């Protein structure tokens, strides 16, 4: 070891500690956004809390594998969605059926018809839905479709980010997103009609 060895080592440790602290600060500043997505991917608040804690535990342990300057929110969500799959969400009561393929206009018209009128205004339609109808509808669509809808429409991720998070091609994200949105609307339309 050279004369400057200990000094260099001390500097290296100090730099690493600083980088780590910065990483942790940035990760924690995203917690609310991470929770928002987690909450809609799982069935209960408790599960979401557990999942977010597990995600941060894993993220903090493996902080050195994060590349500074890349999208940390997507990096955290990738950990989270992997953990969620590992937790065996198959046991969730979500049916594994494929969503029906009704068209966008058909579903809009169906929702509008709930009021027995031709006028199609979103305010009139959503007035007929209960407060938790979206949450309920989301929980009823198959997980592979729901994941994409939650990431893109609630988490504000781009198609590319969602593809990276879920480790699927971008085309798969797009087709699942379109089908997931339709499935969601199908549920909302049914609720508006009842």
């Amino acid at each position, binding site marked *: 070891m050279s004369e400057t060895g200990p000094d260099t080592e001390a500097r290296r440790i100090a730099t690493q500690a600083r980088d780590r602290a910065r990483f942790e600060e940035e990760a924690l500043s995203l*917690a609310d956004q991470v929770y928002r997505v987690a909450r809609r991917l799982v069935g209960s608040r408790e599960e979401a809390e557990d999942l977010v804690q597990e995600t941060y535990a894993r993220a903090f342990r493996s902080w050195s594998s994060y590349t500074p300057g890349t999208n940390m929110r997507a990096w955290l969500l990738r950990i989270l969605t992997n953990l969620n799959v590992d937790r065996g969400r198959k046991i969730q009561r979500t049916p594994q059926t494929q969503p029906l393929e009704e068209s966008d206009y058909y579903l809009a018209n169906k929702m509008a018809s709930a009021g027995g009128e031709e006028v199609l205004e979103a305010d009139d339609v959503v007035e007929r839905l209960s407060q938790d109808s*979206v949450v309920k509808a989301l929980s009823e669509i198959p997980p592979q479709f729901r994941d994409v809808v939650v990431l893109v429409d609630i988490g504000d991720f781009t198609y590319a980010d969602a593809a990276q998070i879920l480790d699927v091609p971008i085309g798969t994200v797009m087709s699942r997103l379109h089908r997931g949105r339709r499935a969601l609307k199908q549920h*909302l339309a049914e609720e508006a009609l009842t």
Partner: protein
Amino acid sequence: MSGDPCDRCEELLQDFLDRTLTDVEWQEAEGHLAGCDYCARRYRFEESLRKYVRTSAVERMPPGLMAKLDELRGLDATA
């Protein structure tokens, strides 16, 4: 694309709102929407519905979770 221009407009709806249409498709949709009240209403409806979905589905982090996450700082990679 042949057939009903409203069908074509419906096809472009999701990508229009996602802002992923090409310039040519964008002009195609805009051109049709300017003169078609039927499609314009359905586009507006879809846009409002998306906002409704987003606002209804968002739930804030429970109090106390942040403190729990903060306690995880400094976790050892080998732990």
